[in-house]
Structure formats: C-alpha cells, structure tokens
C-alpha cells in the first residue's frame, strides 16, 4: 500500500535528520522525500511517499506525530491527491534524432530549457509514472545526466476542507 504523508514541521536545523532517522530506525520505507518552506517561513513541509502494510502505514503516522518538531501530519492516498515531480535531463543529440526528441517533448509536455551544439537540457513536471515513461522513451538516445525531485503532493480540492 502506498501512502503520501504531508508533514508540517518546525523549520529548524536537525529536523530533517530526526524525521529521516525515525524512518530508518523503525525500518519504514521512504519511496521519495521532498522538503521545502511553506508560506510561513517558520514551517517547512515534508512530502514523504512511503509504502507498507496497514499496521506500518498507521505506525508511520503515529510515530511522526510523536516527534516534537512535527506540527501536523496529513495522510492521503495517491488517488485523493495531486502529485508532481520535477525532472531535469541532459541528453546528447545529433541531426538525425533532433526532430524525434523535440516531438517526444511536445507529446509529453516537456520543455527544452537549455541547449548547446551537442546537448539539450529538458525539463518536465508531471506525475512520477509519466516521468518514468518519459525517461524510458530516451533509451535509444544517450542520456548524460538525470536529476529528479521527490514527489510533492497536496490533497485534491475539497469544499469541506477547512483552511488552516
């Protein structure tokens, strides 16, 4: 079972280490992790994607709540959320495949953000699955370097949800 945890924490040094340490000590998986400041500079948001059985999923939430630097834990399923990852990928191109690359980018809604005579830097923001699919499309092209962020996610807009 996959779960997304949106964890608001005090924006202090050492907090990431404490949260990451909790996952490693209790043998919980981290599939992906993304951290950033929120609209309140005193608060950071960690988006953690994890997987496990029902008991593990429940324990992760309880153990996160136990940490004194954790302000709030929101848990949601992938289906109930909008999630995005950012990909930056540098590829080598030549005359014969330039057009193909540009076409794939167009179909997949990726952008070429930088370019030289031999290389292109492609940016794509999408779900984890589509990003993987996009990378797979480049199997025949020589990939120089790939950088991916962890998943960011927020719950889908729900009229009954209260603003905090």
């Amino acid at each position: 079972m996959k779960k997304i945890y949106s964890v608001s924490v005090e924006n202090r040094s050492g907090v990431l280490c404490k949260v990451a340490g909790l996952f490693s000590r209790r043998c919980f998986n981290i599939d992906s992790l993304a951290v950033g400041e929120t609209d309140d500079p005193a608060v950071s948001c960690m988006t953690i994607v994890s997987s496990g059985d029902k008991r593990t999923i429940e324990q992760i939430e309880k153990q996160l709540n136990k940490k004194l630097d954790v302000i709030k834990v929101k848990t949601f399923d992938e289906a109930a959320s909008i999630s995005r990852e950012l990909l930056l990928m540098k590829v080598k191109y030549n005359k014969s495949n330039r057009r193909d690359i540009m076409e794939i980018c167009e179909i997949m809604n990726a952008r070429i953000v930088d370019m030289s005579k031999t290389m292109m830097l492609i940016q794509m923001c999408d779900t984890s699955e589509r990003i993987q699919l996009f990378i797979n499309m480049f199997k025949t092209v020589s990939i120089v370097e790939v950088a991916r962020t962890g998943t960011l996610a927020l719950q889908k807009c729900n009229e009954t949800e209260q603003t905090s």
Partner: protein
Amino acid sequence: MTGADAIVKCLENEGVEYVFGYPGVAICPFYNSILESPVQTVLIRTEQNAAHAASGLTRVSGKPGVCAVTSGPGATNVITGIATAFADSIPLICITGQVNSSLLGSDVFQEADITGAVESFVKYSYLVRDANDIPRIFKEAFHIANTGRRGPVLIDVPIDVQNAEVKKFVYPETVSMRTYKPTVKGNMVQIKKVVAELTRAKRPIICAGGGVLLSGAQEELLAFVEKHEIPVVSTMMGIGVMPTKHPLYFGMVGNNGKPYANRAMNESDLLLMVGARVADRAVNQPDLITNNKILVHIDVDPAEIGKNVGPSIPLVGDAKHIFEDFLLQDFTCEHKQWLETLKEYRKTMARKRIPNPAYVDPAGFITMLSEKMEDDGIYVADVGQNQIWSCGYHIVKKGRFLTTGGMGTMGYSIPAAMGAKLAQPERQVIAVCGDGSFQMSMMELATMRQHHVPAKIVVLKNNYLGMVREFQHYNYKDNYSVVDLSGSPDLEKLSSAYDMKFLRLENMDEANEKIDEFLKQDESVLMECIIDPMDLV
C-alpha cells in the same frame, strides 16, 4: 548573570535538590555557578551511572532527576544511562557541556555530536545557541520529560553560551508548544465501551505495566479492582502496582513470569492492558492475547497502541485519569467462578525449586529479605539471574520495586539505589545484584562513601555471568563461552578498602540472623551471598 547561572536558577525554580554528574572543561562554568546554589552535587564515578542515579531519584520522587556531564566522552558515556531511562519511560534532564559554538563541527578536542548521537534515545533534545533561550528551554524540557509518555530530555550547552551574559532572567510560568499536547484524559465513548465489555465479561483481567506506576495510579487501580473484584497481573516494570500478597494480584507475566499469571492472561475473555508496551519479554506470542478475547489497550502514548498487537478497543490516556473515570462509572460485573479458578491455578501451578542446601538459595533468601524489609522499603533489582529471582520472589508490601525491564542494563541497581536513597533518605533502600552486575558499578561505592548515602547492597555471587551461562546451558549444550568471572575481587577486602561494613552468607542456616544484622546497619553495608554456580532461574 551568565548562562551557567541561569541554568542553575532554572534548576532551583524546578525544585531540583541533586545534580549527579562529572565535570570537565566544557561544563565547568555550570559547576562553578552551582557552588553558590542550594542545589547539591553528587560526583558519580562514571557518567553512565549519573543517569541511573537520576533515574532512581526520579522513580521515587516523581520529579525528573538531573545529571550534568562534560562534552565528548562525558556525553557519550551517559548515553547508555539515557537509553535505559528511555526504554523504561523515566523522565530525566541531562545537561551536557559542549565545545565553543564557533568550533562546532570542526572535530576539536572532546567534541561529540551528542544531540545527533542520542536522537533515538531521548524524547527531545536541545542544542542551546543563545543564552537568553535558557529559561524557556529548561521550562520546556522539564515539561516534556514529565508529561505524556515520560522520557529523558538532553540539553547540550556550548561553553561560550554558559559564559555569555543573560540580559534578563524570567522563568516562564507556562509552556506553549504548538507541537506538543499529550492526551491524558480518556475518550468517554471509549471508556463506556470498556465498561460495557466489563459488564459482559466472564473472565476479565488487568495487566498493569510501568505506566501505572509512572502516572501514580496505584491507589486508583487498587480502588477499582477491589470495587469490582477484577484480578490483576503485571509486567516486570509493573511489579509493585499492588502488594504482592493482595488476593487479587496474580504475579508477573512473561517468559520469566509466573506460569499461573500467563495462564490467567491467556484464558481471560477481556484483557485490559494498561501502561504496557506488549513487548516480547512480557508477551511472547501476541496472538494469545488477542485470540478469543477482547483486548483493551490503554496507554498515554498513542503510538504504543497497535504497534505490537492490534487491540479491539484502543484507549489513549494517562492511567490515573482513566481509572478515576472508570471509578465514576456505575456498573457491576460478576465473575466469582473466574477468581476461584485463578486462585486454584496460583495454588497448583507455582514453580517448585529444589534448593542446594550447601549454598544460599536465592529464592528463599530474597523472600526472607523482603519479608524483613520495612513495609515501604525500596528494592532495586539489577540485571541477570538476580533480576529474575528478584521479580519472582521479592514481596512488595507498600514499597517500591525498581529495575530496568526495558533495556536490561547491567549495573543499574547500585547507582539507582543511591538516587532513590537521596530522594527519600528515611526509607530503606536495598540494591540486589549479581557479581557480574556489581562489577559494572562497583566504582560507585566511593560515591556512596563520599556523599554518605547509606544504601545497602546484596551481591548474589556465583562466579558466573549466570543468565548467559543459563542460556548457554539450554541452547549451547553447556559450552560455556566467556561467562566465567574468575579474577573477581575479594568482596570482603573490597568493602574494607572502601571502609564499608561487610557480611557474608554461605548458606541458609544463618540467613535469619545475617539479614537482621544487615538491615539494622545505619551506614552503607555490603552482603555477599554465595549461591550455587549451577543454579537456574
């Protein structure tokens, strides 16, 4: 006022009487400031024992014990003591000196990243960067340590912060932390559900853990079980929740517990697990406590509920509040037959030991000692075979039974007994250890002499690391490996070196008189009991 002065002021504001510790350069400003204070210092002989001594003091006084050690090795030495307190949910405040803030991270002399190192053994930790934060941090630390699921808090203070000027010292009245609001009051809907099950149950039982003692709920528990005649068993950390000879108490559960206690728990149809983690030592097969029964798990820490076993009814709250609420509920439950059955089990299933008359029988000795102890005496058991015998044969009257059930740290009993004795000098305090665990803490005899702490020590001597030897007996066909304690000191000479009274008991013939003599001593005293090296728990 300096940061160090401010720390001392904070301790005074919290009513701290003793600080256990060991100085070093990085904590010297603090130890200089404390000279002017009514807070007394105890120079422990190794830092691990500072935390154990503070733990003993905490468990008797209910107030978090304090230890203060230097940076680097001082700080790393105290970790085992902190981890021990953490496993047993004992609130402690541990102050560590640290190198100058500007040198942090540069691996200078005696620098250790202690807040990083203890992360998984503390409830919370602070690295103080600004001396003006000291009052708030200490107020928070005491609050965090002693509320909710209790536990140790570490405060790391760089030497320049201890020397820095504090603009204005105001000790906060209250704590405001948006991330920390433990639930202590039980949810009424859940409480009503439990009551409904109690009304229905034919074979109810309560298994009480250390959480009951930590919340000080002994009176409420007793009132509740006496009102409804509900039988009680306990975990190791729960020993002492009720007098051992109370008709409703059926002993300790677990691998090393009473067979009738385990049977009672397994055959019940409603089990109230209170303030216990359901860890492997108490509950070897979690399915036995969920099969064919309703399991109610009551704990102040929501993360404990459902961690090791899935309960039918979870109930988050502090045991004292929960039992107070239970007592207000009007209901009756009827289970006379069940109590008769349990009494029969207790009579017929008690383990029979065949003692070797050439030696002191640890079971007989411990029973005799505890019967002769003062009613409110404090018995501190160490770790090893001695712990299991103590759990099995010590009789709690109105006193306390202290041991480390969670971490099982050898050497706990002597420093913990010292802390307990300092907390309540009018009570009788006895540490009971083996010759292995004694040698892990024997340097503290000096501390006892220096600070005139008249705790009493019993050493059950068998020249073996008995618990491991027993394990090797059962699991490695008597291939004993690294368990022979040859080379141990002559305890009579050792006692004399520390100018301590010494008694030796070689068999049970003189036990009566020797125990009387041991107990009547006003000064610290050591009694060596020679037990059969091949004895098994």
